């Protein structure tokens, strides 16, 4: 019993957001009607999976204090192009179509990732401008492709083997497994590989990293690539869930993604954080979104609350960083 107590204390100290997650759960259980139902728990699970995958990808970019505004557009473009491939190019071969669809969506992600990465590393563009441009072009393309080229708002008729990935009926656990695998992959990359160490080093002090032999440009490029690829996987999940390719997929997700990452504990100035924090952050966002929804709060008020929470998190991050320095400076003797 004592051991669990110590363990819990350690988790909270390492990941202060855990405390807020507990508070959110408490709040939900006590004050929100229908919170503790099986149906709602299933909902929360799925929503967590949905947010987790793309937020993990975004964490890579945030660790270098960058941003990727185009991740939501990847969802849309991947969705419509993938659906097109599956429905129009492989109508008679569902299994092959599924594979082709998955590959196509990942390829879409790779293209976005490459453009963003190269723009930042070669053209020296700030990431928010590069990704803003790709975001706008992507969103426009998705809408045009679906409505204009195909004349539909959504592309239905996806092969069953693909829809399974979304977790309908008995396959409820599939997206959960996918999400956990992606999260595990991200955590593995960040904590156990050299690439992950390089991500943290570059995010903390790129000059020192360079002198220590780290290939900074390569690392930054791959941060954007991974973010885009994770977004592509997310696109697969969501498209399967909706059972149709949709051109406005995830258009409102961006705030949730940034909230999950920043409130979770990854510092906006880079170098600190990770996907474990993002997991907790995603959980927190999903919980409060869910709770507020059930109470009847409108989506835009939730947006307001989230914006304020990110603000609070950034202020706290600033204060903590500053006090760390100040206290230590006083102790230092030289």
């Amino acid at each position: 019993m004592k051991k669990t107590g110590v363990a819990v204390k350690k988790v909270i100290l390492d990941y202060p957001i855990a405390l807020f997650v507990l508070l959110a759960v408490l709040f939900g259980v006590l004050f929100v009607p229908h919170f503790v139902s099986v149906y709602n728990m299933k909902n929360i699970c799925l929503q967590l999976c949905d947010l987790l995958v793309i937020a993990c990808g975004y964490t890579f970019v945030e660790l270098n204090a960058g941003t990727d505004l185009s991740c939501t557009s990847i969802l849309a473009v991947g969705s419509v192009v993938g659906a097109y491939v599956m429905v129009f190019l492989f109508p008679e071969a569902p299994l092959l179509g599924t594979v082709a669809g998955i590959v196509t969506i990942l390829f879409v992600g790779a293209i976005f990732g490459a453009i963003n990465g190269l723009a930042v590393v070669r053209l020296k563009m700030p990431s928010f401008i590069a990704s803003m441009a790709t975001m706008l072009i992507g969103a426009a393309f998705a809408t045009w492709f679906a409505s204009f080229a195909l004349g539909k708002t959504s592309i239905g008729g996806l092969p069953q083997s693909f829809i399974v990935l979304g977790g309908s009926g008995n396959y409820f656990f599939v997206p959960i497994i996918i999400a956990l695998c992606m999260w595990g992959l991200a955590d593995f990359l960040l904590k156990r590989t050299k690439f992950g160490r390089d991500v943290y080093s570059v995010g903390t002090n790129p000059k020192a990293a360079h002198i220590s032999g780290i290939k900074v440009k390569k690392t930054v490029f791959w941060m954007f690539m991974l973010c885009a690829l994770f977004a592509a996987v997310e696109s697969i999940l969501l498209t399967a869930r909706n059972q149709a390719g949709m051109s406005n997929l995830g258009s409102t997700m961006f705030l949730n993604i940034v909230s999950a990452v920043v409130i979770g504990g990854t510092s906006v100035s880079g170098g600190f954080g990770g996907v474990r924090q993002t997991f907790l952050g995603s959980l927190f966002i999903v919980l409060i979104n869910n709770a507020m929804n059930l109470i009847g709060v409108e989506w835009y008020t939730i947006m307001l609350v989230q914006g304020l929470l990110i603000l609070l998190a950034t202020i706290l991050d600033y204060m903590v960083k500053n006090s760390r320095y100040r206290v230590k400076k006083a102790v230092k003797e030289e």
Partner: protein
Amino acid sequence: MNSMAKGQTGKAAGFLSRYGLYLVIAIMVVALCFVNKNFATYSNFMLILQQMAPFGVATIGMIFVLITAGIDISAGRVMFISGVVVGEILLKLPASVLESPFVFVICFGAAILVGGAFGMMNGLLITKLKIYPFMATLLMGYIARGLGLTIAGNTKYDVSILGTISNSRIFGVPVAFLIFVVLAVLMNYVLRCTTFGKHTMAIGNNKAAAAQIGIRVDRHMIIIYMMCGVFSAIGGLLSAGQISEVFTTFGENNEFQIISSAVIGGASMFGGKGSILPGAVVGVLLIQVVLNGLGMLNASVYIYNVVRGVIIFLAVAIDCIGFEGELR
């Protein structure tokens, strides 16, 4: 993030960089004249001027921010929330006030207050909490939108009363455009002929030296962001008046167009450069001509967005040549 872009050498490059834009506009105008007879008409020209006015006003504020190597991506959403606040006020005003010219004072006054408040928040976050301008304004943008929608719910506000200003013409020239011209001339004067303007250029060029000289950089930056908020709000009202209503996605993504206009007009995201006359005018005009031209070509909505995205990318890519700072 403060780094000087290396200057371009060579006479040809110099000529291009100074007059290239006018060349581009001229080519586009000529091409569009051939494409659609209606383009070269007086009424279309006036339409272009009228439609560019709200963006022009907002660009004026954005240029000051860009000169200090900052950015404000909450501009569009500040337009939204000012529109919402004004809409609410209009609903609550008694008919007598609504019919007097006093209503305009109230509307624009309210918008200025709202824009100024959000601008000040931006400024504080950036100077006191040292949050990157992009992140800070992104946050405030969400807060503005969330707050605006919470106030509005699903109502569309009828602000046709502002149409009296936004849509009317004096001797055929749109009033909105005249307002833009007046503000442009005024702010151009501030930028080029006053100490405030000089200090802005100084901060954008060499922040450390500016502080050493005794310029109160933090205070200056807060004022600049407040100005940007105010101009965005005013631009927002003008725009709302033109469409007669403030709807739920009013102002969304406008900041990107505003920033592109400023950058095309000569401002650099790395600071130290920028002008209102002719910069802002040229930039806004160019984009407006393109958009108008797309309308002439009966381009679909999606093409609009793609073109807007491409313009932003190109404008900024050219600006980034020679940047030697950190890659993020």
